[in-house]
């Protein structure tokens, strides 16, 4: 029983990390149909920005978050302007182009900062555990879980309660008509892409105290995040959250019952079946076209 409780928390913790990475991807995909394979590299940039801020400006992980968001969003904005914008008419090519961008970012960091793993200190005030009976929860992981929920809520509000969100949904529904009403679709796309990239940066900042910070750290993450987006249903925020939770918990349960490898295989098989029988995902979005 103790193991089950602890494992449920572990699943939640994995889910929160998946969510925070997948959210940016989901927004970008949902809005412009671009599968951003460079997303993992945005996560990596976030981690490195955190490292740079900690080493050169003495900022902690949490205080660095806004700066990281802005920095990575700026990179995303430039990439959208220079490259992605030219490819909206050929969506499948964006997979290839963003993969190329990913290689370039990764190599640029490797050449600029070095290949070795960088150390980022976790926040001191979040060290330690909360223990409730046999359930042991790391404070930092609780923080990551809460933060991911906060980001989810903020993003949801942004999409549904602001003027930008309204414009965004209009562009998603019908780009041509929205432009007739004076909405600059190009601008909306740029801002959305930048926002998605910024979220990836935050994800990078948050996971770096737990993982190892190297130029290739994003490559493995993007596949998982991508699966979460697809399982959740294209462009659906709540679907993405539910899918992250589902995949996190199922992985956690499988890994305790069998082992981590077989757990992952089982989850992948489940994802394949799910896409086969529900290609629109668990929660198909009602706003998509």
């Amino acid at each position, binding site marked *: 029983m103790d193991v089950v409780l*602890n494992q449920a928390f572990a699943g939640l913790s994995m889910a929160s990390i998946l969510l925070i990475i997948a959210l940016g991807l989901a927004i970008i995909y949902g809005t412009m149909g671009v599968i951003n394979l460079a997303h993992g590299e945005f996560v990596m940039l976030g981690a490195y920005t955190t490292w740079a801020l900690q080493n050169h400006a003495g900022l902690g992980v949490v205080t660095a978050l806004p700066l990281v968001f802005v920095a990575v969003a700026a990179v995303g904005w430039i990439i959208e302007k220079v490259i992605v914008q030219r490819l909206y008419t050929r969506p499948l090519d964006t997979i290839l182009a963003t993969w190329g961008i990913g290689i370039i970012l990764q190599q640029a960091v490797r050449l600029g900062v070095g290949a070795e793993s960088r150390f980022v200190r976790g926040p001191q005030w979040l060290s330690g555990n909360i223990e409730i009976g046999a359930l042991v929860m790391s404070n930092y992981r609780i923080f990551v879980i809460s933060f991911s929920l906060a980001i989810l809520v903020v993003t949801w509000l942004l999409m549904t309660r602001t003027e930008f969100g309204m414009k965004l949904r209009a562009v998603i529904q019908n780009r041509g008509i929205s432009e007739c009403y004076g909405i600059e679709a190009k601008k909306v796309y740029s801002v959305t892409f930048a926002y998605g990239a910024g979220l990836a940066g935050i994800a990078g900042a948050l996971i770096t105290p737990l*993982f190892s910070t190297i130029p290739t750290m994003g490559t493995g993450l993007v596949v998982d995040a991508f699966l979460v987006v697809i399982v959740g249903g294209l462009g659906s925020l709540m679907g993405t959250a539910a899918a992250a939770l589902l995949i996190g918990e199922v992985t956690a349960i499988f890994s305790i019952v069998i082992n981590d*490898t077989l757990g992952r295989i089982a989850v992948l098989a489940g994802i394949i079946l799910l896409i086969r029988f529900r290609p629109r995902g668990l929660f198909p979005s009602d706003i998509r076209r």
Partner: protein
Amino acid sequence: MKRREFLGQAGAVGTMGLASGLSVPALLSGVGRAYAAADDIPVGLLFSLTGAVAVVEHTLHDAALMAIEEINAAGGVHGKQLRAIIEDPASDPATYADRARRLMIRDKCVSVFGSYTSASRQAVLPVTEQRDNLYWYPTLYEGRECSRNVMYGGAVPNQQQDILLPWLVENFGKKIYMIGNNYVYPKEENNYCRILLNDLGGEVVHEEYVPMGHSDFSSVINRIRAEKPDVIFSTLVGDSDVAFARQYRAAELDPEKMPVCSLTRSEIEVKAIGGDAAAGHFSSAPYFMSNDTPENQKFVENYKARYGADSVTHFVSEAAYFQVYQFKAALEKLDPANISPTEIRDAAVGMSMLAPQGEILIDPNLHTHLWPKVGQWQSDGQAKVILQSEERITPKPYAAYPGQQCTGDGLVKS
């Protein structure tokens, strides 16, 4: 066979080769062994500078390159410079095989220094053995290999575990939890560990393997909490080890009660883990950066001067470094006009030299006699040696398999 004979044969067939294309193969089998008596001595460096294992391999590359340049600065060997030919196999076994061929066949290197993972060594092995070249492999590994074309500079299981296990059981207890990445090295180390534990009356409470690059250890940590072992016996490598250590720390598991004892964690991983998270845990290795010998002081000083004050040396980069010196010493025993990989090998056997870790010796089975130590990590990222073998330990690559022995004549089964 003498080199001249090869050249004669090759020349004859070479002219025929253009006339009748299909007889060319006869020529080619000679190509790799025709080492021209050039002005310098080509040696290959085959360490990944990019990709997943670049983090470690780049430091091996740096150490080996430094040794080469030190030797060249001191006048080379027999007045000839060593010419380092650098290839980047990009952490991909297929590329290792491809680049090894370039070095051994096209560039006619008399030796190649390279690689960290078992998979990459095995990818390089076919061409090395066919061309009778020599591959200097600096990494600790699982044993169970007895090639006559590989110089093994790292520890094999008996050199890492023989002094470690009795000490662990005595000081922490008999319940061992094994965690490793899913490939041959961790499994073989754990095999050997089980044999030792059997004699010591220890017990394995759980043995598990995670995929290479696995980074979320929440489940593993939960299981550790549930099993309550005395020691975590870790053979995790690279990013997995870093992630595990950081999450172990974030979960507030206490190294005093339940330390992680790693066979693979070195200064370079600790630097990424952070001194705080690594402090209190143990590693077993023949070399630590803090080793107090004149040879090591010089090694560390030169290394830092060259690659920056925050760079670290570790037990694999030390081997990458001393192997170049072993190579040099072997060359010095040979006739400069007449060197070949096999002759270098034969000259190297039985040779001893002072390495940063102490005086080492090359066994006839081409493995190295080393000085095992156990270090406890401190928060400054350095290890404090708390246990040191009283004697140099002989490498026994097949220690877990009675009836098989790696000797100077290759693998002998009885």
